[in-house]
């Protein structure tokens, strides 16, 4: 029996502005532990919107969301922040590192926030994650001195620091060239198959989606396959 990491039940969402549009229409699905899932569809089909609902950052929806079989409340902002910190790792299209910090500190921040391990331990773990992604030589560089591909790998290391239940990516390769895209994909694949890391990646790149274990296809706010 596979453990359900993420489960969406009858999720409905409207955009109010400028006119009321139903962007997500009764979405139900679940993701099991260790699955490498891609969420694809045409531009505007609601895939990113769904991802942000699943990520707990967007709480303006109807229906229910279970992470690690626990129902997520929609109101309690600081509880959701804690959940994001502990159970979800993020990788975005634009790399979103904090330019004020060096690479190592960027990776360490969510770990320090979790406050489960000592600072030394978090630093050690951060080095481990950087080593895993073969970028430990960049540890002491400032975030804005890196190339796009390097930044994205740092962002993946940051997503991994708290050993999250699931990593969510919003077009993580959308802004990268072919070579770096492949590199990032290989990292995801390695994480999924060697470390049993659950991954949910939003992409409109069919080549990327095809190579994942499971494809969820969306159209007009509905899951079609």
């Amino acid at each position, binding site marked *: 029996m596979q453990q359900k990491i993420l489960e969406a039940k009858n999720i409905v969402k409207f955009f109010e502005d400028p006119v009321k549009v139903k962007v997500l229409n009764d979405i139900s699905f679940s993701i099991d532990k260790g699955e490498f899932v891609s969420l694809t569809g045409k531009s505007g089909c609601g895939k990113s919107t769904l991802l942000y609902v699943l990520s707990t950052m967007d709480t303006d929806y109807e229906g229910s969301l279970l992470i690690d079989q626990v129902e997520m409340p929609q109101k309690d902002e600081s509880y959701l922040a804690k959940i994001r910190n502990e159970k979800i790792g*993020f990788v975005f299209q634009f790399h979103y590192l904090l330019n004020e910090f060096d690479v190592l500190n960027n990776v360490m921040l969510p770990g320090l926030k979790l*406050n489960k391990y000592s600072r030394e331990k978090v630093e050690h773990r951060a080095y481990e994650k950087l080593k895993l992604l073969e970028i430990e030589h960049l540890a002491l560089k400032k975030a804005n001195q890196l190339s796009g591909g390097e930044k994205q790998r740092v962002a993946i290391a940051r997503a991994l620091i708290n050993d999250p239940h699931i990593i969510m990516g919003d077009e993580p390769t959308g802004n990268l060239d072919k070579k770096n895209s492949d590199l990032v994909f290989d990292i995801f694949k390695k994480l999924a198959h060697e470390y049993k890391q659950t991954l949910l990646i939003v992409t409109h790149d069919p080549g990327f989606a095809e190579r994942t274990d499971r494809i969820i296809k969306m159209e007009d706010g509905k899951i079609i396959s």
Partner: protein
Amino acid sequence: MKKILLINISKALLLARWRQTLVAAIGVTFSITMFITLLSFMNGLNDLLDGLILNRTPHIKLYNDIKPNANQPIMNADKYKGKHHFIQSIKSDANKQAIYNSMAIMTSLKKDPRVLGYSQKLTAQVFFNNGTTDITGVLNGITAEDEIKLFHFNDYIVGGNASDLEKENNTIVLGKSLAEKLLVNVGDVIQLSTSKGDRFQLKVVGFFQSGLKDVDMVQSFSSIHTVQKILTKPNNYITEIDVKLKDINLSIPTAKEYAQLYETDAEDIQTANAQFETGSTIRSIISYAVGITLLIVAGFGIYNILNMMIFEKMDSIAILKATGFSGKDVKNIFMYIAISIGLFGGIAGLLFGFILSSIIDQIPFVTAALPTIKTFPINYSIIFYIIGISFSLITTYFAGWFPARKASRIDPVVIIRGK
């Protein structure tokens, strides 16, 4: 641990924009500097002006006023008891000027815990003989030691030595303007006559300058014994006891109590010099108002800079929120930024305020009216520094509060999707 992490993030954000931070901090520093300087200087001036009158004024003056006796003989007659008395041509009783039982009063004052000290006094109207003209004046018999200790007598001595009054008999300290009229120097002998016509010769041992020319024109001081001799009175004859209390605010009730207890008239300082209080209060209010206005202006500066910083750091705020920092954490980060600008700007302001007021303290300020003042007066009270730093923290707190709240409400989804 969590707090340290947030403070570290604040520090990183601050240092990343250190020029802006510096400008904000300089705003606070400038206003605190001006606040400290203004209050120190204003209060220094207040103290000076108050001192001009208050230093030399007793908190309670015990004396007998020249007035008709309240207890007329007819009131004691049994025959007219309970009747209304009409008495004509009553005269004030000048012989009652002496304080009765003065020794006992002084012994009891010495034991009163509220009393800091007292000084006995005796006043005589005299004429200073200057060739063919006589100049009217007042000769005060004092105990120089007590006057110096309690009423800053030495601050107003501009020549000679007041202590010589006790060391030598038949000596006098003259008002500066009076001495100029009489054309005498320290060591000269002057002649004076009493209202009864007796003549005395006294040696000048010093000059007195109060800063009020009318006073310096008529006042002179001698020892109690000398004045008693001039008036041909016994040596328990005194007309005034000046009391200095430990707490000036007790002067009104204590004066009332003494008037009853010692059966004399008692005048308190607050009734006698009410207008000085008012002047000082208004000057203080004005300086506080100006100082606080400066701080509020600095507060708006901080508000602007934080708002700008939040606008620039939208991405960072979004990523902090996405990786598990709550709105409250983000708010705290920006509050730490605001408060640290207030704290460091404020501390620098205190330092510069102290330096600036020290410089003002060195600027020469010479006026004939104030013999002991050589430079501008400054009050270095620690209270101004405490108020200054508290206000800088409070202003920056509120200046930071609104931008920080705005930052805490930023929706990360909007930022991340907005690209």
